[in-house]
């Protein structure tokens, strides 16, 4: 067994034979080009001049003062071109695909951020792009469907199964099987068969590498704690990976607890799932005793996924990363808090990380430092949030938050 395909006991390549030669080629080409100085320079060029990197590491003074504990820094991936961390991966993989001579890019998307990022990379490099999106998600995120089409991509709405991210991924895999000879599938998270989880992690590690340099420049030392949300887990693995060897840095991955872990309506595959195989990898999943995948639930479309990247499963079992879960309600409160305290409207996905920070920070001292990854901006979620929260209620939530300080 080629152990490189696995993170401990997690990962692998559980895909139809038709795709295996494409994965072999991808593994080979990626291993080669990722070491080439020309490729690194090309990617760095686009990340800097096109995507706007490095993204700032911003000291959130009012959030820090309100919570009254650790000093909180925000890694501003929301400021990237296209509005999230997804562009780091899409640009990198599109450049790899071009090296392989592929003319078409495929992607699945939940909230639409990865679809938009891939459609953008395709437009930039003059490639064709097809994006698969669950019918339910396409309805919830109609504006992103329009954005993708404006960028020249074809958007295929998926009506099978749960009509969300899981089924969009199934359909993208099916389509890839029939077009594998001239197309490259850009998986949007650190999931899927080897080499995807590793490649996506490498491409997203720019988040953690920058964070390390920035915090050393601003504070002269490493942070005490890193917090990021986990759906498939690409923004979190990107932040965490460069710090794995720094054992003094605590890491918290935040899953979506949806209506609550006890209700069964959540997307917390690490906190509540069991081991199984989905989308090509052995990992923690939401499934029944017969191995049938169960629907996930989260207010955030990007976390609404019943699996998780295999490296996270490994990091959970090894204990290096701690995984927490945050409910829809808690995420909504954090969404509002960050908007009102810092003037930053986070994506609902990122709001889960903020909510976790709001629980952790008050228990730490002002000498301690937390970095929270704001993986994307929340413009896309404003409609969803306004449907859930009325004006009156939202005032209430904000008041509750401010009371946190006086109660302490």
């Amino acid at each position, binding site marked *: 067994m080629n152990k490189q395909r696995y993170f401990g006991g997690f990962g692998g390549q559980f895909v139809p034979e038709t795709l295996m030669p494409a994965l072999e080629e991808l593994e080979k080409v990626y291993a080669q080009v990722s070491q080439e100085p020309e490729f690194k320079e090309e990617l760095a060029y686009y990340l800097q001049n096109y995507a706007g990197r490095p993204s700032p590491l911003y000291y959130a003074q009012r959030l820090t003062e309100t919570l009254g504990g650790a000093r909180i820094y925000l890694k501003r991936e929301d400021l990237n071109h296209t509005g999230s961390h997804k562009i780091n991966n899409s640009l990198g993989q599109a450049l790899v695909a071009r090296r392989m001579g592929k003319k078409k890019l495929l992607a699945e998307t939940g909230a639409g951020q990865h679809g938009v990022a891939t459609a953008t990379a395709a437009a930039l490099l003059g490639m064709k792009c097809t994006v698969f999106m669950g019918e339910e998600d396409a309805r919830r995120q109609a504006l992103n469907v329009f954005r993708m089409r404006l960028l020249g991509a074809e958007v295929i709405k998926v009506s099978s199964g749960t009509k969300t991210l899981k089924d969009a991924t199934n359909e993208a895999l099916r389509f890839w*099987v029939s077009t594998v000879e001239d197309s490259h599938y850009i998986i949007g998270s650190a999931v899927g068969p080897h080499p995807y989880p590793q490649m996506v992690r490498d491409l997203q590690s720019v988040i953690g590498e920058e964070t390390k340099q920035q915090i050393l420049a601003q504070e002269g030392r490493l942070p005490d704690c890193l917090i990021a949300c986990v759906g498939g887990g690409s923004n979190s693995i990107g932040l965490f990976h460069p710090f794995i060897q720094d054992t003094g840095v605590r890491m918290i991955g935040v899953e979506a607890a949806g209506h609550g872990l006890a209700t069964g309506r959540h997307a917390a595959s690490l906190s509540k799932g069991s081991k199984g195989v989905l989308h090509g990898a052995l990992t923690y999943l939401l499934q029944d005793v017969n*191995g*049938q995948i169960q629907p996930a639930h989260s207010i955030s479309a990007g976390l609404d996924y019943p699996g998780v990247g295999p490296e996270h499963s490994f990091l959970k079992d090894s204990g290096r990363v701690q995984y927490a879960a945050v409910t829809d309600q808690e995420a909504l409160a954090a969404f509002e808090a960050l908007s009102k305290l810092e003037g930053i409207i986070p994506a609902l996905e990122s709001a889960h990380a903020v909510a976790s920070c709001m629980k952790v920070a008050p228990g730490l001292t002002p000498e301690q430092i937390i970095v929270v990854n704001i993986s994307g901006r929340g413009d896309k979620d404003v409609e969803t949030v306004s449907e859930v929260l009325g004006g009156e209620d939202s005032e209430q939530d904000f008041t509750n938050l401010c009371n946190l300080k006086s109660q302490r």
Partner: protein
Amino acid sequence: MSRISQTFAILKANGDKALIPYISCGDPSLEFTEKLACSLEKAGADLLELGVPYSDPVADGPTIQKASQRALAQGVTLEKIFHLATRLRTQIKIPQILMTYYNPIYCYGLEKFAADASRAGVDGIIVPDLPLEEAGAFKKYTDAYNLDLIFIVAPTTTAERLERIAAAARGFLYCISVLGVTGSRGELPKSLEEFMTGIRSYTELPLAVGFGVSTPEMARRVAQTADGVIVGSSLIERIEKNMPVIPKEPEKVIGEISSYLNNLKYGMTLDRKI
């Protein structure tokens, strides 16, 4: 010699080719599947593929996806399918092959699955999302319990992979003739004969072709170049179309599907060499 190998050997000695229907267990009920299986044997099936329904069948097109959903809605589980296979073993003589995605096997337990399948009279297993690289752990148990783990070869499979797959394979090789998922297609690929000749140069194992066969003419052309013809979606389309009739007149629908299969068999015998 396994029942699968024996079946192919006898067919070959008679100048015949194998007809292998695929049906989805529990679509729309396990009782229906049981009666249909018995009838398909009489109509000319030489081996039988029993599909295990799964929530996320990534190698399947819409027809089998919907059949899986109908079966899951009936509460079909592996346990019930093993009971079905046990009952069928006393009624039919042809080999039974389970086609299932890997996750249900993994959750059931690799060894327990192999042991229970063997006890139920199952002869072979096809796992569409278990390529050679990942098959080792499961193959240890299928070998130990005398089950043939059937491997898949695709048009994209390289010569180097083909060599390794052929060395590990038992029973027969499942040759996917087209790039894509399961489902009926208007025509077979032009390169079918070339594809089959390429595989033939690497192995003596019987070669069965699946994905896309739906007419007697197509079955005939496949039989000219392969040892077996696998038919799935076009049978299931006939179940789907008759869904409202099945509760009242299951025998009529089973009769229609069986005579369709019999026509395919007829197509395959036109070039029979004795």
